Structure formats: C-alpha cells, structure tokens
C-alpha cells in the first residue's frame, strides 16, 4: 500500500477544460499531398476532432444524460430550433456524447428536410425560413409562382436577407391553397401581401379551439377506459373479448391509406408475445390530405382514447405518437393534453411518447416511421417480417393512422352496426375525403364510404368558377389520375377503382379542370416522389429521377417511360416506389393529348 498519494499529478479529469489549443481545431486538415510526398506533422489524430466547448454546449442544451439513441432526431430538433441550423462542430459534439459515428449522425440529419447542415467554412442559412408549398393543389393555385416571386423580391433587396423562401412538399393545408409556413406555422391563402405582413409582424402561434380534456371527459369521454381500468382481471378479459369482436365486426379499415381491416390487425398484434408497442401515424403527408390535421386539432382525445383502448385490447405497453413537423400547433396541444391525461391516472401503466417528424414524406410509410422513431433515416423495411410481428425495436407493433383511431371509441360504444350502416351500398363505414383543387369550396367531406367524385364536387359547392371538370386524383399523389367521364366510380378500397389501376389511399381527392395540363400535373407528382424517395432502392431512387428527367424533356419517350413504370411498380421495396408511377401511367392512358410531343402530333 505504498502508492497512495505517490503521484498526485495523476488525479485525472479535475482540471477545467481549456480554450482551443489551435485555431483549426476541429476542422479537417486542408488538401493533403499525393502519394509519395512527405507531409509535415499532423499535430492531431485523424479526422475532425471534437471541440470540448461545442460538446459542452450541446450537453448543456440537451440536459439529459445519458442520451438515448432513439431520440437522435429529437436532439437534432432541439439544436436546430436553438441555432437555426446544425453546425458540424455541434454535430461532432453530439456524436461524441451519444457514442455514435459521425457519419451516422450526419446521414440521419441529412435525410430530413427540416434540418440545415452547416459544415465548417459554410455559411449558416438565414435565421428565418418561409416554406411555400409546391405540391399539386398549391401549384394549381399559384404556389410555384408565389415562391419565385418571393425569391426574386428577396434578391432585389425588397425583403430582409435574413429570411429565405424554400419550396415545400404538401403542408396538409390544401383547403387553403396556396399554403405557406413561417417556420412551421401555417399561412393559408398565401400571397405576397400576407407573406410580407408575416415577415414584419410574425405568425401567431395559436392553438386552435378544440375539445380539451375536461370537455371531452364531460361528454363521457374515457368512460370505457375507466370501466376497463376498474375491472377485475377476469372481467377485463371478458370486456376485451367483447370489444374485440365489436371491432372485428365493424368495417373499420386503415384510413392512412392501406385499408387493412383494423379489428384483424389488432387481433394479429395481440397474438404475438409481449411486450407489444404501438405507433400512431400522424405523419399525414400524402399530397391533398388534411383530414388528420383536422381531427387532431379539433378533438384530439377521441384519437387518444383509441390509443388507450388499444392498450387494453392489444396489450400495449408503450405508444409513440409520430406527428409531422408541419403541424406544430398539434404538437403543442398534444403536449398539453398528454400531460393532463397522464395526470388523470387513466393511462395506467401505458406510456405515451410524442415524436416530431422532420420533413420526410416517406416516414408516413409505417416501417419508415418506425425507423424514424428509432432515431434513424426513414428507410422502409422489407416485408416479411411485418411490423405487427417485428416493428419498433424489433417488438410486435400496432401501427394505426390518426383517423382510424378516431373512430374506435364510437364504434365500441355504439356498436359495429352503427358504423357499418353509415356507408353507401356495398361500402360500409365513414370516410373523410379531403377535397381540393378546382372546386368552389375545398375542404373535408365526411360521409359514408363509396362516395363518387361527382358527389364530392357537389358537396364542395360544385366546380370553381370558370373551371370545367376534366379529371381527378382519387387518392392523393399515388392513387393515379382519372378522367371526368369516370366520375361515377365509388371511391373506396378495392372495387372498381382498383380495376382501373387506381386506389383511394388516404381519400385525398384533387379535382382538375380544363385549365390544367395533366402531363404537368403528373410531372409535378413525379417531382414530388423524386424529392421524397428515400433513395434506398434503385427502381425508386433512380426511377423517379429518370422519370422526371424524361417527362420534362421536349418529347418524352413514352415507351421507355412505360417500361420504367413497370419496373418501379414491380421491383421497388415499398409503396412509394411501387405507386410512384401511377400518375404517369394514368396520364399516358387517359390524357395522351396532354403529352407535349403527342400534342403536337395530333
């Protein structure tokens, strides 16, 4: 025992961290010599060094240590929110704190549109970002033109250089097209005037009026949950079995777009060994769709009660709510309401965690969303295995869309028949159609399933003034395009629509008129897919890019496009790539006259 105190110099780690030792600290060395040439001393290890001050800044900003791998995207949000961008120094500090490879942090951050990565020596982006939607419904209402106008005003010095204008894919506000967002706060019916006003006065970050926890409870909300919570084990089992059969009898289907029978999905997940997890898909991003935004911003607890019912009926231990970053007011109200819900004790042992998307349409695909919740790039997974068996963190996972869950309470309280009786002949249940484009009053139409576009146009006050009905998107960007003469097709999963090679998906109906060129519309949709392709598989990554390239040429090679469409549909990993060519095929099938070269020939 002679060593104690022998060399106190070895008391490690008790010195405060110094200033940077050399100015280039943290930056990779400049151009290196060619093989064979001797170089001077390196003075540091390989690659970028972590700057202790930057690391400390991030540690202080994030607060919680140890950091969780699955929270990476949340951390990136916190840094982006604080600094308006993600600097290499901060990301290196974050990578070090999380014990992650730098490349892993960079690839995740660079996957999502809402992060601005700034390398050493690069200029940081302007403090303020105004996004202007250029997806189809907004494009039709002048979104692209508005963007160009604002950008040129900025370059002429008429707008503060600290504001930038960037294009954005669908903001989920097609009813108020063209839509823009200041930061992430929505500006409907955007024009130069109201955008200039927003720049000077800011956007009010108002939370809309909605049915809060107290009001929801007062209207017998969560009564079923209370009963389930109070039940003995046996009684609980009996109740669950009854509720399960009601749900299975109901014609409720996945309203995110896939239409999978909800009761069956719940039974399947319940059949796998626990712990079972749940993810609510609130990444509403299919162009033309804005129904989930409405349900969440008007009656959020009805969806949350659906989650709680799932926790009892499927045996869920933890649920993640994945809400797109474009809906900040919803994130705010959910944060508030979840706290109330948790304080009420109704949750029992269920944990609910709120997650923010970061600007990636593909994360609406359930397995991509799961990857994103795990803090990764949103790359869809291969099936099998299906997420019901191996989803979040490799556990059995129940994934439901917001609207699907919205109906669960009512179905279980009022019975399957009540729900099934709502639809049209052969099309049971409710549907919420998001109708936009050339109609007089764009908006949501909640009606029985199986409505036709003719009915929906009528429900929206007919066609907009001066527009003649020419065709429509029966299911957002990916559902294809149909001509006006097919206006009587029931818009539901499968059936006639499927026979036409189209699908209803999230029930986003975009109405087009004689003022619209269908080839241009299809090109806009393909551009959207090219922008939103995750880039994982060749047919989609390269296929969407090549399709846009061919479609925008003076004389599109339709034969080659046809071959390309086939392989994209046949060989892509996920629904995005498989459906991306639908509008292209539709345009070639139903609107050949709108194809540039073809038009000149006729």
């Amino acid at each position, binding site marked *: 025992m002679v060593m104690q105190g022998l060399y106190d110099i*070895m008391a490690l780690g008790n010195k405060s961290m110094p200033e940077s030792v050399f100015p280039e600290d943290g930056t990779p060395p400049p151009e290196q010599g060619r093989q064979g040439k001797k170089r*001077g001393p390196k*003075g540091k290890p390989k690659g970028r060094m972590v700057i202790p001050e930057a690391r400390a800044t991030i540690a202080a900003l994030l607060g919680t240590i140890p950091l969780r791998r699955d929270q990476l995207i949340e951390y990136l949000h916190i840094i982006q929110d604080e600094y308006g961008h993600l600097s290499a120094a901060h990301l290196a500090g974050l990578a070090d704190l999380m014990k992650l490879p730098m490349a892993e942090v960079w*690839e995740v951050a660079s996957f999502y549109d809402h992060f601005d990565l700034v390398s050493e020596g690069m200029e940081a982006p302007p403090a303020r970002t105004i996004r202007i939607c250029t997806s189809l419904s907004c494009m039709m209402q002048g979104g692209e033109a508005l963007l160009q106008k604002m950008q040129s005003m900025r370059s002429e010095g008429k707008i503060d250089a600290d504001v930038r204008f960037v294009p954005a894919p669908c903001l989920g506000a097609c009813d108020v097209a063209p839509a823009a967002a200041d930061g992430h706060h929505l500006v409907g019916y955007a024009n130069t005037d109201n955008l200039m006003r927003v720049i000077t006065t800011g956007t009010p970050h108002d939370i809309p009026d909605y049915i809060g926890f107290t009001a929801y409870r007062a209207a017998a909300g969560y009564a079923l949950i209370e009963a389930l919570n109070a039940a003995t084990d046996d009684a609980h089992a009996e109740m669950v079995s009854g509720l399960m059969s009601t749900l299975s009898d109901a014609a409720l289907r996945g309203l995110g777009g896939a239409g999978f029978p909800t009761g069956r999905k719940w039974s399947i997940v319940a059949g796998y060994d626990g712990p079972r997890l749940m993810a609510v898909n609130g990444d509403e991003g299919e162009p033309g769709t804005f129904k989930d935004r409405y349900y969440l911003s008007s009656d959020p607890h009805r969806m949350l009660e659906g989650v709680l019912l799932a926790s009892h009926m499927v045996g869920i231990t933890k649920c993640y709510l994945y809400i797109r970053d474009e809906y900040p007011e919803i994130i705010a109200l959910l944060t508030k309401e979840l706290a109330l819900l948790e304080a009420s004790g109704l949750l029992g042992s269920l944990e609910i965690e709120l997650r923010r998307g970061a600007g990636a349409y593909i994360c609406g695909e359930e397995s991509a969303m799961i990857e994103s919740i795990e803090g990764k*790039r949103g790359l869809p997974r291969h099936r099998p295995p299906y997420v019901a068996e191996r989803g979040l963190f490799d556990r059995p996972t129940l994934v439901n869309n917001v609207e699907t869950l919205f109906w669960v309470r009512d179905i279980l309280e009022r019975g399957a028949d009540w729900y099934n009786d709502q639809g049209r002949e052969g099309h049971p249940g409710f549907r919420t159609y998001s109708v936009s484009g050339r109609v007089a009053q764009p908006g949501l139409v909640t009606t029985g399933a199986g409505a036709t576009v003719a009915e929906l146009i009528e429900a929206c006050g007919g066609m907009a003034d001066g527009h003649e009905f020419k065709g429509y998107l029966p299911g957002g960007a990916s559902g294809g395009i149909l001509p006006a003469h097919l206006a009587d097709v029931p818009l539901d999963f499968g059936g006639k629509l499927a026979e036409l090679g189209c699908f209803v998906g999230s029930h986003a109906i975009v109405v087009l008129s004689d003022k619209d060129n269908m080839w241009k519309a299809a090109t806009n949709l393909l551009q959207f897919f090219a922008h939103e392709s995750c880039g994982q598989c*060749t047919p989609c990554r390269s296929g969407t890019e090549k399709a846009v390239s061919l479609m925008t040429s003076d004389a599109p090679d339709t034969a080659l496009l046809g071959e390309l469409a086939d392989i994209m549909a046949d*060989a892509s990993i996920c629904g995005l790539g498989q459906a991306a060519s639908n509008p292209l095929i539709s345009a070639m099938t139903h609107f050949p006259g709108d194809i540039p070269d073809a038009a000149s020939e006729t």
Partner: protein
Amino acid sequence: MAQAPETKNVTFTLDGKQVTAPHGTTIWHVARDADIDIPHLCYKDADGYRADGNCRACMVEIDGERVLAASCQRVATDGMIVHSATERATKARAMVMELLVADQPRRTDSHDPSSQLWHYAEEQQVDHSRFPGKKAPHPDSSHPAIAVNMDACIQCNLCVRACREVQVNDVIGLAGRGADAHIIFDFGDDMGASTCVGCGECVQACPTGALMPKTVLDDSQKLAITPDKQVASVCPYCGVGCQLNFHVKGEKIVAVTGREGPANKSRLCVKGRYGFDYIDNPQRLTVPLIRRDDVPKSASLPFDPATPLTHFREASWDEALTRAASGFSDIKQAHGASALAGFGSAKGTNEEAYLVQKLVRQGFGTNNVDHCTRLCHASSVAALLENIGSGAVTASFSQCLHSDAIIVIGANPTVNHPVAATFIKNAAQGGADLFVFDPRGQALDRYATDSLNFTPGADVALLNAILHVIISEDLYDKEYVATHTEGFDALKSQTKATSPEAMAPICGIEPDKIRKVARTFAAAKAGMIFWGMGVSQHTHGTDNARCLISLALLTGNVGKQGAGLHPLRGQNNVQGASDAGLIPMFFPDYKSVSDDDVRTKYENLWEASLDAEKGLTVVEITDAAYDGTIKGIYVMGENPAMSDPDQNHARAALARLDHLVVQDIFPTETAAFADVILPASAFPEKDGTVTNTDRRVQRGRLAVPPPGDARQDWWIITEIAKRLGLAWTYKHPRDIFAEMRIVMPSLTGITWDRLEAEDAVTYPCADELSDGADILFGDVFPTPSGRGRMTPADVLPPDEVPDETFPLVMSTGRLLEHWHTGSMTRRASVLDELEPVAEVHISRPDMTEKGIRAGQMVKVETRRGEIELAARMDPNLPAGMIFVPFCFTEAPANMLTNPALDPFGKIPELKFSAARLTPTPVIDAAE
C-alpha cells in the same frame, strides 16, 4: 450470442424443381447452390455481410405475390413457388442494370471494367442505357491508398456495411435522400481528411470500382494493372494472423486482398492491405556487407540506411558467411560459449525460429537465445506458465462473439490488433458488455459499457479491488473454484484489504464503477479477458497477469465457449517463435533446459552436448554486452537498437561487441553496429509457417523472389551452422518442420502437407484428422495438480515515479500504421505517408498549460536521454501523461524508456517512465 443452429428444413419449388434447404436460407443461396447465378450487387456473399436487398438486381417472381422479391434477402418458406427466370423477373433485373448504368462512365471509360457491376451488366446484355445520366461527382484522391471515384457509385451501401457492421470503423455513411443519396466519410469530408483508418474493407466490398486501390490505377483513374496470379499467404505484421492473397504482376506485389482465414474472415487492416511495398524499398539489402576497417563502431556515429557503404563494403556470400561464422567460433574458443548470444525473430517463420535456437544451442553451445517476446509478453507467459501451465491463449479471440462480458485491459487493439478488434466490436454491438481498462482513452470506448481510465501503473490495485468485490460479495463460481482451482484462500486473504473504497484513491476509479464491472463480469455466463503490453510491460507485469488469471479462474471463465484468457500477441509469429524454443529457459514446447531428461533427448537428437543453465534474456544480454561478458551476438531479424529500453545504453552495448552479425532485410539501426550484414528475405518472399495469437499454425507462401542476391533465411542460418561444423542438411522449410514435429508434441496432427491443403490448423491437435482445439482446459490444466492456481499480487508502485523534475508519465507503444520499430512500415509508402512524422502525443490540458501548439517541436526528456519531436494533441490522453510511439528512428522513444525489469518475466517497464516536456523555441523563419 449465437443461436442454437436451426435444424428444420424447408421445401419449396425453384424454377420448377423441388428443393430443400435449411430453415432461414435465402432464395439466392438456394439458387447459388443449384448453380443458378442470380445477379447481385448490393449483396456480398461473405461472413459478416447482411443482405440489404436495395439494388434490386436479384429480383425473382414468387407465385401469389403482387410484386417481385429480392432473392438475396427473402428467406425461403415451405411451399413457396419461385421463378428466377420469368420474363417479368429478367426484364426487371435488366432494367435495374440499365438504370444503374445510366449514371456510370461507359464501360470503356470505367474505372474497373471487370467490376461486378459490369460483369452482370454484360450477362444481361446491358452495355449502355437509354436513360439520361446525371451529373457525376468529383473524384477524391485525398487518401494515399484508396481512390474514391463516386461517379461509379450505385449507392448499394456495401461500403457502409463494410465500414460500420463488418469492421466497425464507423467512418462511412449514406447521406441525403432520393437521387441525392450519396456516400459520405464522417461529415462528408474527403476520405483522406476523415477518421478513416484505411482498412480497405470498403474497397474489397465495392462492386463497381468506386473505391479502388490506387496501386492498380493509372493517372486517369482507370484500371491499369491486372495481376498475373494471386498467392495465398499470411499477413507479415501483428499476431492476429490474417490470411491474405498477394496479387502479383511479374515479380511485384501490386495489391493485397483479405482471404477467408479462420482468424480474419477476409478482413485486413491498413498495414496488411496497403503496407506491402516495403519489400521494394530502395534500402533493401541485396548483397552481403562487411564492415569497413576504417569505420569504428560508435553509438554516436551517424548512419544513414540509404548509404550503408559509408560503413560497409560489399562481399561475396562465401566471404560474409565465413566471416560471420569464424567470428563466433573465435569468441567461443577464447571466452567460452557463454560469451555468445543470439536473437531470433518473431517476424520470421517457425522454421527459422527453430533453426536460430538450434544454432545457438547446438552451434554456439549456450542458452543465451531470446527474441522480442521478452519485450512484449514475457511477463504474461511467466504468469500463465506458473498458474495454468501453458503460456498461450486459452481461447481464440473470436470466441468473444460468444461472450456476455469482455474485459480489454492494457491493450489498444484497434491500433495494434485491428482485425481482432473488429470481432470485439462485433461482440459489443451484438450485446456483450465490453469493459475497457486503460489510462488512455481509445477507439473501443465507443462500444464499451464502461471505460475505466485508471491511474497509470495502478493495474494491480484496480484488479485486486475487482477480485475483492467478487469474493466479498460471494459472486464467484464456487463449484469451479472448488473443483478446478487452488490458492483461493491465499487470494481471499490477500484481497481482503483491497476493497474498491481502499483502492479507489490509488487507481482513480470510483468504487461504484469497480463494483459494477465486478458484478457484471461475475454474472456473465461467459466472460473473456484480453490484454496487451499495457499489462505486461511493467515491473509488476507478471503480477498484473496473475490478477487476470485469478479473475478468470474465480469466475469459472476458462475452458468453455465465449470464455478465456487471451494475451493479444504482437507479432505475426511471436507465439510460434516462443513455441519453437526461441527463449533462454526452454527448448521447443517450453521444455526446461535444466531438465536432464529433456536435455538428454535433445543432446541425442542434435548429437551435441548442451548447456544446462538457463540463458540470459534480451535485456540481460544487452547488459552483458555492455559489461563485456558477452562479446558476440547473432541477430536474425531483430532490431534491439530500436526496441530495447534505454537506447543509449543498448547502442553502447552493441558498439562494444567484438562480433555482431545482423541478418535482415534492411540496414537497421542495429545493423549499423554489425561486423557482417547478411541480406535476407522478407515474409512475402519465403515459404514457411507462422503461429498466430490464437495458436493457429498457418502457411505462408512465397509470392515474389528476394531482390538481388538476398537469400532465404533458413538457407543463411544453415550455411552459418555448416561453417560452425554442424551437419545440417535441410533442403526446404518442410524438412525443418518435419524435424520440429519430432520434438514438439504441440504439432501432433499438423503436418506440412495438411497445412498446404488447409492453410491453418490450430494446436493442440489430436491427430491429422481432428480439428485443433480452439478452447483449452475445459477439464484439467497442464499443471502438476491439474488445477489452475490463483496467485495473489501485491500493490506496488512503478519503478520510476514522477517527481518535480520529471512530472509526467511517459508511455510508449505503436501507431496503427507503424508496426514495431518501423523498419518495415516506415519504408511502406502508404503507411509512411499516413504517419510521416515523429510526434509525441500530449493531452489537451497539458498542451494548453505549456502553451504548446499542435505540430510544434518539443523536447521530451527522461533520466536516460532526450528526443525532439513534434507535438500531437491527443484527446485520449489524461493530463499528466504523454505517449511516444517507438517506431521513429529520428526520435526513438526507447532512448527514454526505463530498463527496470519485472522480476519474473524479465520484461522492462516500457509503459511507464517519469518524463518532462519542454517546447523547443520557435526559430524565426525570416532569419
């Protein structure tokens, strides 16, 4: 954590035929086995590579499925009906190729027209694309060894998997989205400016030529050199024993690739893959040299290896060999056999090691024969022999893939055993708890459950605290201790006082952390312990190893899957050279020289009377040379002028010798003091066997001939022996190996022919049909009692503790790129370009406190000497500690090191010297 093998089979239909395959097999694998070549780009059919199914070049049609499926990734299930060649599938596959080819340079302009991409494009008659191409990214030639031409990239992410999942070096990523998806190094940096460690796994995996070795490309980045042949051999560097292929064009090695060896699974590190051109260095010795009469030997006289003729003259082989041999016989005659000594090499083959010890024992008549194991793991071997009766590892390093807990102590394997480190990282990523004990931070920390950066030299304190917790908390494996060990009571009483609370002030680790590690390791179903020079190169090195052995025995972690003791061996053949008897106290297979029966056996075999006394060890030989009692030394492939501690002393000792013969491939720092220099062959120029850290005997093969009049080492040793009057008749290394098998039971079951066929066999090996034993001592130990002993160790301070004059702790070691004394790696162009300058590594706080700027020249002093070199800021170092790599001849670390020896292993304390650091005044450039 391996699963029990699934034995169930599935039966399904593939192209109309019923096939049966084990459950879990992919369609692609079944097709391959049925000789159906389904194109594949993003899938690499090799160990450690997960199928990713992203390129879609391997699509097949499955009845009843809406879309096609990726055969590389889709697991076959019962009753599935699969068609690999329908029009729909073949059309889709061809279209995928056409899409990929669209963004490539045309084949005639491509970087590698023979790439997998172009091979499969040709198979599908795709030679051009109808699709418009997109803008090609710029080439990146910033890395000395690897050409990055991303215009050929197909975003298949094989390089990402190679870097992040196989070798786990964590540099490459796939950033961006959609058509903008692109490969990045770190944050999108140039490869040469990134944290890339140059292992080249990505190059080996790349199917397109986007990543290629620069050596085979011309200035326009096109493939210019196609090798004539590939020669299967073993890497000449560290003890991991990676199997590789030398790609040979004419008489030159032009590239190296990893081979599916049992140790490396086709992985290599930067040294093995890119450090091969040292053999073509102009400083190679090509003719025998004899010292000029007009040049005295002096420790201070400068010697430039580029111009050896300032000190030497060329000679014929006959003259040089006669001069070499007669020098030894003259000394023997005048001063007796004990005035002679020989150093063999852990870098040579087993056969050469055997011949050197035989030459010294039979020809010189002394046991003064040793090699650099003395400077690496002598203390580990001493402790292992003492306590478990065997000096080698008890289990191969890849057993860690089956461990629940892994301790790495005093080792920096990502630098020194990079490929072994990849398996440790794989294990940690697979869920094993990894604990890294080291005063310095290191790359493994990222994967570690906990890193214990303890006070330098306080190893025994830390380990005793862990032993204390396991015993006092009753966590030890009572049944194992009772049935397989001895010495428990002594260990218990010795560690009674070494509680974490008592040891924390000494080792600098909080008691809670010590307890956590102890509890986790004790609770593990299987635990493995790795250690390196950080444990062994101390005056208490043997004690360190004793503690580790006790820890393994106490927790029952020897002799079963995923468990064991593994001292990571530092040189390609340090295990084999020791086994072959290149140590002063043992004949081959660790048979004591003082054992009469053993000695009689050798006397009969070699027909000579042999020395019955243990010989001197490396440092002792140097001391004896300094004192004048040793007058002649034969050095085969060693470089004591660089590797011995207290270099001024060591070099003075060499200068005092009457006769020094150096056999090497370069005029080394040691050769500067030679009377005769014999030009030898480099590893790729010879046939022979080497034994890796796992006890795997592996076959090295001649790929290119030695340059000029350089000769095979076995031939040179034999010729010296003949001139000493020995009747040696070896015609080929296989003859030597055959003789070794007569005396070495460890080689039972391992014949030359078997090695020729199998390339590697682990010893011990029961017979020629059995596999070697990967894991040893499941039941009994080769000790007199059959039990493993737990020998307690005292907490002692290092020999030279820092004080006011020398306030810093200096440690020494290797760099990733520079192996050992740098004689090979500093002459390998890529490695030298990657680490060209001698630098002392300094902590950030010390840099700041002393006002030292990165790259500035500083002076490092100890009581033995001083060197000047550049300063490197090293965030892995704690304040108060510096690190000096010992590979730089212009600033030799061993000028400074402490020659104090461990009393058992006789290993010097190379890891701990008291030092001081002063910035060198900056001279104004305008002057």
